[in-house]
């Protein structure tokens, strides 16, 4: 049984983003996001009967479904932590839609909260964003392979080696996303332009990745409320229908031949939605690094494998009138809420609430979430008609 058009996104809540310490931990950001989403939808806390919790690095701070449910005194018939890394947002929305169609829940809050940034402490030597992400992993850490930067750097280097992708092309992605962010008041870099020269002058993180090839670490929370299409039509905001969902998991390592989980996820979601790539009017692609965008463009078939760099530079991610991509500025320039970054901007675009950055056509919008060096994907195709 297809889920197409049977459920819809009725509420969206986005907290303040970035270096804000409005809450001492991720739980607080998650709770605020839920409150904002309820207000957005015109629902009450007691209307929720499902809660799916995803988080970033704050799993270490104890953000979990049990803790959030207890602190909000919710009573639900669906409760779970959804942990598929950066692809969790799309996975949670799919689980919510499936539960609603199956009759096991009616109004489900899919929430993300993260608080990797801590308030500055006088005299502290470090404690910056990098520390939270500088995690150790087995034998690799003995070689100084910490966190995620190095993995994506190796992907970028390999792509350059095989296909002649250039630093300018990676930089073009960073610049194009910044131009989108400069039209997005929610973006951390709303008021800061970025030129290709700025990009080249920014410090190296893990060559060939500059600072501006990497996403911005953010504190914040995002909540998406999913309910039946019928119920959504009676609520405050125009429904954003869930037309297709899909996951794709490739065993990796992605470095081997730069293959990803995208084709499987795309095939599943597009088949359910009854759409082809040419029908997609806005695409929001996970962009933890510029190379992630490039490989996603290839994975979805926007261009051929190996041509992502040239494609991104030529289309300028939609600034030249081609299909608008990462219209909010993405994780690189707006906010890094893992999969909730593409999902939240896709909802804003589908609703037509994008203001200065609104895509002219937005009936069918793609949100693409990924993790594990693009091995794992979740895709949500949303639309303005069921």
């Amino acid at each position, binding site marked *: 049984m297809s889920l197409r058009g049977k459920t819809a996104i009725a509420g969206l809540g986005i907290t303040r983003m970035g270096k804000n310490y409005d809450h001492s931990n991720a739980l607080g950001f998650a709770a605020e996001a839920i409150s904002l989403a309820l207000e957005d939808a015109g629902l009450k806390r007691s209307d929720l009967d499902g809660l799916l919790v995803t988080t970033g690095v704050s799993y270490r701070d104890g953000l979990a479904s049990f803790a959030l449910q207890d602190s909000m005194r919710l009573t639900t018939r669906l409760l779970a932590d959804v942990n598929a890394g950066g692809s969790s947002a799309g996975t949670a929305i799919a689980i919510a839609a499936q539960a609603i169609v199956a009759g096991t829940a009616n109004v489900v809050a899919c929430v993300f909260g993260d608080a990797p940034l801590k308030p500055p402490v006088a005299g502290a030597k470090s404690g910056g964003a990098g520390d939270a992400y*500088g995690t150790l992993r087995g034998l690799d850490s003995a070689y*100084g392979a910490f*966190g995620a930067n190095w993995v994506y*750097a190796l992907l970028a*280097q390999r792509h350059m080696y095989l296909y002649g992708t250039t630093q300018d092309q990676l930089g073009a992605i960073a610049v194009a996303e910044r131009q989108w962010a400069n039209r997005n008041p929610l973006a951390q870099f709303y008021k800061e332009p970025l030129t290709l020269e700025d990009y080249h002058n920014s410090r*190296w993180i893990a060559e060939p990745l500059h600072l501006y090839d990497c996403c911005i670490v953010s504190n914040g929370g995002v909540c998406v409320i999913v309910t039946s299409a019928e119920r959504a039509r009676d609520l405050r905001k125009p429904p954003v229908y869930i037309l297709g969902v899909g996951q794709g998991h490739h065993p990796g390592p992605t470095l081997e031949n730069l293959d990803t989980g995208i084709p499987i996820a795309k095939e599943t979601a597009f088949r359910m939605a009854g759409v082809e790539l040419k029908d997609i009017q806005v695409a929001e692609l996970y962009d933890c690094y510029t190379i992630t965008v490039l490989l996603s463009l290839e994975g979805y078939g926007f261009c051929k494998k190996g041509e992502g760099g040239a494609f991104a530079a030529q289309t300028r991610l939609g600034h030249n009138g081609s299909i608008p991509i990462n219209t909010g500025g993405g994780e690189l320039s707006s906010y890094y809420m893992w999969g909730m970054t593409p999902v939240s901007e896709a909802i804003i675009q589908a609703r037509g609430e994008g203001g200065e950055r609104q895509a002219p056509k937005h009936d069918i919008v793609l949100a693409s979430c990924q993790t594990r060096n693009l091995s794992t994907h979740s895709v949500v195709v949303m639309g303005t008609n069921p």
Partner: protein
Amino acid sequence: MAEEAKLIPHVSSELKPFFDAARNHQLAVQKCDNCGALRFPAAPMCLKCDSTRSSWVTVSGRGKIFSYTIMHRAYHPAFKAPYALAVVELDEGPKMTSNIVGIEPSKVRCGMPVQVMFDKLNEDVTLPRFRPAD
């Protein structure tokens, strides 16, 4: 002079043969007992024949740089940025994450031939790294 900071990897039972070999200046990878396919990192199953029986064998220690990055931040005092971190494709096939040493990081390239060297961290742990081939 203060003792050099070191990051000593945990020698898991799974990787003990790898570190035993390294202590004797040999590079070891897993070999499927059924079909003979080599693999690294250590894994429970052969991807060629699905067998779960394996042993460790030594290899030449020669290979090529498959991809690399120059890390410009050291997250641990054992490392001094910039340093080169690479995936090396061994002549025998398996790929290994390691460091490229004995060369300016900025001179490292994909495809560059490399050979293993052994870095003794303490009495128990010697870590294989790679340097440009002779």
